[in-house]
């Protein structure tokens, strides 16, 4: 048993941290590409050079901690799914993933229906839909490849909670290519859950650290806030829960290649644990800060919004808990 990063992964982490310190805004993406970042999320078969659970976990933890809003996760899922179906995307092509639907927490096939090889209905919160070369679309039980410029496709973009651009995807008898049953793509989808969870874990640690700093610096009634036992004990409880979230991410990253039934239990456990902790941290971080934590100009706000977004991405804690309790697969 070994929980240490490999030398390669430690180098990747160092390089990523360096980039995130030095670059922001427009300059960030080219720097990440140059350091091989998107390619590190994919296996050699998929056109990358790593794609392991450990790599995905460490990359998205760093990005989540830094609050980077780039549609890397949908691109990774789509690239992996396309590759599995033998439909490799072009190198560097922007890809999107349309999964959530209006009118349901996270059931699939509620707002979208299939006739032959044509899709009709709506998908929502499609990150990176604008400018994507291809979109991976879920329906009730299948995965599809959709060209954004195909007839019957309308994209309505808007900003999302996590700072990315999202869109509603409106399909009217739009032609698409069926890649296979959802149940056969548990691998790429599990990596998506891992990436969302690691992103959340990064935001969790950032929010907890910021809160701790605040409690140490801010004084009330003549003492730093951390000297108030009720607040100190809440920080202690948060620290305990952060370790739970970290272990849940570790478990999933270590079981990406396990037997699908075991992998899926870790997918579900990860969403349940990280989702629960994300919400707890979002609530407590604001509460422990007081009013300042609710203001747009303070750094906490973005973290809170990212935590809320991560809580529901690819199904919220309760949605996965129910499937875990019923012994159902994570993706079907």
């Amino acid at each position, binding site marked *: 048993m070994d929980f240490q990063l490999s030398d390669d992964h430690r180098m990747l982490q160092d390089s990523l941290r360096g980039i995130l310190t030095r670059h922001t805004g427009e300059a960030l993406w080219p720097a990440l590409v140059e350091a091989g970042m998107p390619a590190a999320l994919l296996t050699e078969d998929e056109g990358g050079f790593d794609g392991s659970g450990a790599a995905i976990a460490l990359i998205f933890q760093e990005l989540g901690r830094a609050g980077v809003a780039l549609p890397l996760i949908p691109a990774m899922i789509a690239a992996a799914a396309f590759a599995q179906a033998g439909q490799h995307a072009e190198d560097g092509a922007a890809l999107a993933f349309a999964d959530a*639907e*209006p009118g349901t*927490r996270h059931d699939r096939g509620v707002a979208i229906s299939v006739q032959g090889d044509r899709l009709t209905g709506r998908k929502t919160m499609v990150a990176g839909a604008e400018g994507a070369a291809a979109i991976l679309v879920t329906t009730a039980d299948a995965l599809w490849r959709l060209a954004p410029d195909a007839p019957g496709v309308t994209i309505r973009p808007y900003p999302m*909670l996590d700072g990315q651009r999202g869109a509603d995807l409106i399909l009217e008898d739009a032609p698409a290519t069926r890649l296979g049953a959802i149940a056969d793509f548990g691998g790429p989808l599990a990596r998506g859950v891992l990436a969302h969870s690691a992103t959340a874990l990064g935001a969790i640690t950032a929010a907890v650290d910021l809160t701790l700093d605040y409690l140490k610096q801010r004084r009330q009634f003549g003492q730093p806030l951390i000297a108030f036992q009720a607040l100190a004990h809440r920080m202690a409880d948060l620290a305990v829960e952060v370790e739970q979230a970290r272990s849940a991410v570790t478990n999933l990253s270590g079981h990406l290649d396990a037997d699908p039934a075991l992998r899926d239990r870790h997918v579900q456990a990860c969403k349940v644990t990280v989702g629960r902790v994300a919400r707890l941290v979002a609530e407590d971080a604001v509460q422990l800060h*007081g009013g300042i934590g609710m203001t747009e100009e303070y750094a906490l706000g973005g973290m809170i919004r990212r935590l*809320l977004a991560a809580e529901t991405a690819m199904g919220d804690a309760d*949605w996965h808990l*129910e499937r875990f309790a019923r012994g159902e697969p994570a993706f079907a």
Partner: protein
Amino acid sequence: MDMRFTPDELAFRDEVRAFLKAELDPALARKVRLHHELTKAEMEGWHAKLQAKGWLAGNWPTEFGGAGWTPIQRHIFEEESARAHAPRIVPFGIAMLGPVLQKFGSKDQQDHWLPRILNGDDWWCQGYSEPGAGSDLAGLRCAALRDGDHYVVTGQKTWTTLGQHANMIFCLVRTSTEGKKQEGISFLLIDMDSPGVTVRPIVLLDGTAEVNEVWFDEVRVPVANLVGEENQGWTYAKYLLTHERTNIAGVGFATAALDNLQRVARAQVHRGQPLSQDPLFAAQLAEVEIELMAMSTTNLRMLSLAAQGQAPGIESSMLKIKGTQIRQRLDVLTRRAYGGQASALPTLGNEGPDDAEEALSATATWLNNRKLSIYGGSNEIQRSIIAGALAKG
């Protein structure tokens, strides 16, 4: 013991319902339901309708132009208004300053300011909190130095709700630095059009700008605007905090939020059925409904004590804690019911996803309602108040 409303109370409830049905514009109610920001004109319009009916100041004695309602009547009005999604009566003049002036103001102050609150001539806001003070309200530093017939006020206030609409502000200011920090505080009425007053909105997580920072730079305030005695402001502030809280539990708001959540849960689909029939979600809904059933009665028990003239003690702190827990829990479940749709930024303007306005308002409400457990004395402060009373009792 009798848990039923009296015939008079039932008749009053019917009258409130009829009034709301006749006078509340559905488009306005919709804005309230979706937690959209109201314009100043919309709020003033609602106040005017209530004042025309004689209901704007339900908590004021009739001698001051109020309705002189019992606590139970006020509860009925507040609950019915919330369930109908009527705008909330802006509390700063009616619920806060009014009772202080009635109890501690001079005859001149009462005669001048109270009618102007009712007829809408003044829009009041509250200058209590200061940056860096947080829950330590008595640590305030905004200074008022006497200079002849004026105080000269310099300092900063923050979290001033709806201050951008106000022409008047009631402030706690420091008039003495001697003795305990509570002892040098005075209660001052300041014209916001005075030279030296600056207002800057604070944008919150949900994109609204309902709170403000207010700066005073050597603002001259007539001594006639001092309420009560100099250095006694802390007493008036405490009076305000403990006596004007009939609606602190927010039963009506919670009931409206529960109604809304149940509607959403019936509409959302889960495993081909309404989400409301999912055993887990239904159980979570039931838990919060049951909490609300109990808190609603706790609230009525406290009101019933108040109606008998028993002063509220730690009860308002207990209601604040439980009330915010319930409302914030409802916010969590409502966001959860919407699933992915609640992940758009709630400040969208026209570019949002079709039909997603309600889902967005769920996220906006979650973000905005975090304030419930922070402002007016955070829940941690409320716990300390309760524990302090228990330790003494």
